[in-house]
């Protein structure tokens, strides 16, 4: 009789501990989970009968993980119908997250667009809590409208010891902050030592493309820039083929890539 491998497709139940609405369509779910993922990793979350979807971890702590989920598809519609005490199914964590150790002692610039903030939230939280572990911390956040702003409580807490710049594409009448795409706030960031900068860029494809170009234009070396990619995935473990770009699999080799690697990932 041959040895039987463990089945990586079997999900484990995870109880919903709390649900926190961020916007009308983005809710943060706190789920009971024993392990500690790396910032930037993701899980395959599922609702039996509706299917699986890859969702990034936005924060974690002792005995729990948090995921911010946007209601945009069949699986996430199903998750939105669930309440604390009910059970989601998870398998993971998967992928390579942010290189937190490599960011230590550096001038960290985080540029996030929309729900792209979710995967990088735990990195910001980490360095806001341990502010002495980075030279400087600049957080640049772009949202479509003021109603799309995520993690409002966090933003207030971060701003106590960190430079947080928020911009929106389309203001409402009450908005008093910056208006414009994220590249229009980047020039306001003061950089003393280009070589000390590590920049993290996460967001929609166009936002990532132009933010990366602006960072390079500013003189930040290519291998000091990190991006996190989002792709369709079915398996999360390198088999289904949906997330392949060139010879890399976003689920295995990413989702976080150094730009020196990512620049050759042409879809």
């Amino acid at each position, binding site marked *: 009789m041959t040895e039987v*491998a463990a089945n*990586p*497709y079997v999900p484990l139940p995870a109880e919903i501990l709390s649900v926190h609405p961020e916007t009308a369509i983005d809710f943060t779910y706190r789920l009971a989970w024993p392990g500690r993922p790396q910032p930037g990793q993701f899980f395959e979350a599922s609702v*039996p*009968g509706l299917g699986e979807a890859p969702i990034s971890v936005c924060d974690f702590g002792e005995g729990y993980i948090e995921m911010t989920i946007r209601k945009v598809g069949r699986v996430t519609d199903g998750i939105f119908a669930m309440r604390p005490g009910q*059970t989601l199914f998870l398998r993971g964590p998967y992928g390579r997250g942010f290189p937190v150790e490599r960011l230590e002692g550096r001038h960290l610039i985080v540029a996030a667009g929309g729900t792209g903030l979710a995967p990088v939230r735990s990195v910001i939280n980490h360095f806001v809590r341990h502010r002495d572990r980075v030279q400087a911390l600049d957080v640049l956040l772009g949202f479509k409208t003021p109603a799309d702003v995520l993690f409002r409580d966090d933003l207030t807490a971060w701003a106590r010891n960190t430079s947080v710049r928020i911009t929106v594409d389309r203001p409402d009448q009450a908005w008093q902050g910056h208006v414009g795409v994220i590249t229009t706030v980047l020039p306001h960031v003061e950089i003393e030592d280009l070589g000390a900068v590590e920049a993290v860029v996460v967001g929609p494809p166009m936002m990532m493309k132009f933010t990366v170009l602006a960072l390079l234009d500013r003189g930040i070396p290519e291998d000091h820039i990190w991006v996190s990619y989002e792709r*369709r995935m079915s*398996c999360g473990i*390198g088999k289904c083929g949906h997330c392949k770009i060139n010879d890399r699999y976003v689920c295995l080799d990413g989702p976080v890539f150094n730009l020196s690697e990512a620049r050759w990932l042409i*879809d």
Partner: protein
Amino acid sequence: MPVPMDNFPRPESSGNSRFLSYNEFEALVAAMARDGCVMAPRRFAGRGRMSDTDLVRYGEVTTAGEIESGIKSDFSPKEALFPVQQTLLTLNAGQAIEPPEDGRPIYLFLRACDINGIDRLDGIFLRNGPEPDVYYLRRRQRIRFVLMECARSLTNCFCVSMGANRTDNYHMAIRWQPDGVHVLVRDRQLAGLLSTAGRPSEFSPSFVTRDDAPVRVPDPDRLTAAVRERDLFNHEMWKDYAARCIACGRCNTHCVTCSCFTTADVPDERVVGRAERRRMWAACHIDRFTDMAGGHSFRQDYGSRMRFKTMHKIYDYYLRFGRHMCVGCGRCDDHCPEYISFSTCINRVSEVLDHD
């Protein structure tokens, strides 16, 4: 607990060659079918693409007479390991139950290119990432390869160019003759089934050495340079395919090495909360392959899809696994309704590297 990847039934290094009459060969196949499951290319009458034509694809056979030996099968043998649709789990009341897997051997009749094609599937399903795909692995452990010798290169074939015309990975090899069948058995269980049937022979399989549609495979290092320095992915040559390809995905579904799939849950309409999680073939040429919730997608023009597939088959798989994914079976060219030739495409890439 990970399973060692070399945990397959290996063929023995030497074997027993016999010449069997057709009746004796029938008896051997019948014994194999009793011992396990015999999967071979067989004819499905009237199921072909055109009216009144037959389809030849893999299926279970119980007699030698059903095996289509003289022509290339329309579909590849990958179905034996990676079915078109497969139930992964039954989900019910918080439990995930795996379907039972039969442990009997599968005697799979196939050609040298297809044995090499299954090696390429092994790369994706077993060696890409830290965890093997258990569904594939369980089938793979049941497989015994029965090599059907090719007397000559068939239409559109280019296995020699791809270095996939030869294999030593077979448990049994066969050569059809007008008056019977040569067999070489390199497996203890099969040797027991063969016993002392027929008469001794000197048979060992030969391999084709000339292609019907030879190709010049581009050097991976030169391809890397062309991708980085000359923007090969946006070269004019792909625009031609944008105009011709209709994104039907036949090249993908007939390919022995195309391994992509999508999973979906199918609710049980009779039992609330019960569902099956299934996977089914997916293909990079077919719409929605890259669609994400929220509306983003990639490679919307069909030329980019041709480029993506071509590079996977003759470039990026090589970068991960050290051998080309494409084995030159030519089924993509056999079945493209727009007469797009993949072998011609490979040659065009080589020409672009030479001339631009």
